[in-house]
């Protein structure tokens, strides 16, 4: 190369060069906002701790204004992070929702449509994708999908249980630890799983890790630890709908739900104690991250598989397409990445969004097979709406649950529910004025004004679902 050849490093920097460089930098920044993985993900890969509970109703947290339930650790998580107050599951049932969190897909796509259909081993999980990017991965806790435990690809540590067809038990629940069944006499499940989670964090702290910690609590049968036996004993339950005020489950059309039969109040308070005991275990995880100095670079996400009806519309349990069944708590803390912590985001976030978001944070694009969207912009407080509506689907999960197939559309303002192969009539709720879906607007004068738009949206969703199924 002669003297006129370009130098590798310029010795003189002109004003034009500076402006040019600034222009490139600005353009790169703008592209970064469109390409996932170039902003938050541009930082060092954060550790990921995803904590999933079971049947945790969206408004049963101190931070959501429950009159007496104690959840100091989840409240702390919300205070230090972002709480999504419009978070939903796309199918309100354990197995389908859990598979949706893992795959980023709707139930009609991943195939676990109810608690009876088995997991397809061809499904690709977010853990498998994260493993490819160099993460150490651990799945600890409730798998709860029919059939035997799968050989999950891309998982370094797999601890789960098959006891009671995967439902587990709050006490003495045998665990399958990396393929080997082990008795756990005298152990409280939430505590036992947390112990393993802490071991995993300590062991993998030097590398980016992703821990998927899935609890059984507060799922029924409601058996909290004995030390909490008197907690909430004298608290009133007038925050609940009238069906829960009856001593024996006062349900519609002669429906009987064993889970809440015989003294609803006692069972409800046990449920609340389980929420508090779960919160204690979450506190242990947060404390451990603090003591290891990992909190700053660890993204902690808390959510649940589905909501829970506490007498809403005369129903207990989940499955039905009413807001307390669809809505889930969803809290994200990431000190190094979240702008203005302590915020509440009103964007509609879904269970299927978890996988794309985690991949984006790890610097990956959302794979084409995933249905969810990354909520990374919400963590960065960017003014980018995530979605205007979503499709809720439910597939019969019989017996003994007499809930028909459902297709519903939930927008920011309305919930439109249709029942398939059933004599049940469609329902419409104004979710802003009626956040518990108690007043069906079908047949009222205002209903027709919004129905056409909702039907069009729902038709498009159902068409897409049928297309995917074919």
């Amino acid at each position: 190369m002669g003297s006129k050849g370009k130098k590798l490093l310029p010795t003189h920097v002109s004003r034009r060069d500076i402006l040019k460089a600034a222009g490139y930098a600005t353009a790169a920044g703008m592209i970064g906002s469109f390409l996932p993985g170039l902003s938050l993900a541009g930082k060092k890969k954060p550790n990921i701790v995803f904590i999933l509970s079971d049947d945790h109703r969206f408004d049963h947290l101190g931070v959501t204004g429950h009159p007496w339930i104690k959840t100091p650790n989840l409240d702390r998580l919300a205070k230090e992070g972002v709480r999504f107050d419009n978070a939903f599951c796309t199918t309100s049932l354990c197995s389908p929702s859990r598979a949706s969190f893992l795959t980023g897909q709707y139930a009609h796509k991943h195939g676990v449509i109810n608690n009876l259909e088995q997991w397809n081993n061809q499904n690709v999980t977010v853990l498998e994708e994260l493993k490819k990017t160099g993460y150490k991965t651990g799945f600890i806790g409730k798998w709860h999908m029919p059939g035997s435990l799968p050989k999950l690809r891309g998982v370094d540590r797999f601890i789960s249980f098959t006891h009671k067809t995967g439902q587990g038990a709050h006490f003495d629940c045998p665990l399958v630890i990396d393929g080997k069944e082990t008795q756990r006499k005298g152990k409280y499940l939430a505590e036992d799983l947390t112990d393993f989670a802490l071991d995993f964090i300590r062991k993998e702290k030097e590398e980016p890790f992703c821990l998927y910690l899935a609890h059984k609590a507060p799922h029924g049968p409601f058996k909290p630890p004995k030390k909490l036996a008197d907690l909430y004993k004298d608290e009133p339950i007038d925050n609940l709908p009238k069906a829960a005020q009856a001593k024996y489950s006062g349900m519609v059309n002669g429906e009987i739900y064993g889970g809440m039969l015989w003294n609803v109040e006692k069972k409800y308070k046990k449920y609340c104690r389980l929420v508090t005991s779960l919160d204690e275990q979450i506190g242990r995880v947060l404390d451990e991250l603090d003591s290891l100095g990992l909190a700053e670079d660890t993204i902690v996400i808390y959510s649940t598989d589905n909501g829970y009806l506490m007498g809403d519309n005369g129903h207990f349990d989940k499955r039905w397409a009413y807001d307390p069944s669809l809505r889930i708590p969803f809290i994200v803390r990431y000190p190094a990445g979240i702008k203005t912590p302590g915020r509440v985001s009103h964007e509609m976030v879904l269970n299927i969004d978890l996988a794309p978001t985690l991949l984006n944070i790890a610097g990956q694009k959302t794979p084409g097979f995933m249905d969810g969207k990354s909520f990374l912009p919400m963590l960065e407080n960017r003014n980018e709406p995530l979605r205007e509506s979503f499709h809720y689907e439910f597939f019969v999960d019989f017996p003994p649950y007499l809930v028909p197939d459902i297709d519903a559309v939930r927008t920011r303002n309305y919930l439109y529910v249709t029942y398939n192969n059933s004599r049940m009539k469609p329902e419409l709720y104004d979710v802003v004025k009626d956040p518990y879906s108690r007043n069906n607007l079908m047949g009222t004068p205002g209903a027709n004004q919004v129905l056409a738009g909702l039907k069009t949206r729902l038709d498009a969703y159902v068409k897409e679902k049928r297309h995917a199924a074919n």
Partner: protein
Amino acid sequence: MQQTSVIKKQSLCRRMAIPSLAAVMVWMVLNTSYNIFTTIQDPGFYATLTDINWILLVAVVGFSAVITYPIMYFRGASLPERLIGAMALPLAFCLKEMFRATVAVSIPEAFFYAFFTSVQLLLLVGQVGLLSLMELICRKTATSKKGVNKVLTPVPTLLFPMALTALYFILIYDGGYAFHLKVKMVYRALFL
């Protein structure tokens, strides 16, 4: 299971139809009132009325044979008549449940739900046990009224503890969960 000769046989209407239909009618009234009460807006009023109604419903559906069976027995109803009469209400309940199930599933699945899931089986098996017990009690009472037949015969004597054992597995063992899983397993084998 033969009746004592001292009992006078009354008309079919009096010995069977009236007691069994009366039980069915009371159940229908309570069922209707329960559904009406669920529309009451005041939570306290609603809770009081539905709770009372619920207890009465359980009592009538599950235990009406305590009253109807002896009436039929001492009005001279034969064993098949007593069985049909006493089972009328539980069967009506199961049929109502079958209709309710068709809101979500096919008729064969609804039939399975109405006769082979925990709540309905609890009722049907419980009824078998209750009828066995009532038969023994009626015989004992009839014997003390100078009847001549034996009180303890193999069928009712064995059916009663068998029913109790079945109830234990359906309701109490593992809180009913183990039985619930068996029901699901059978359902999967039959319908999926």
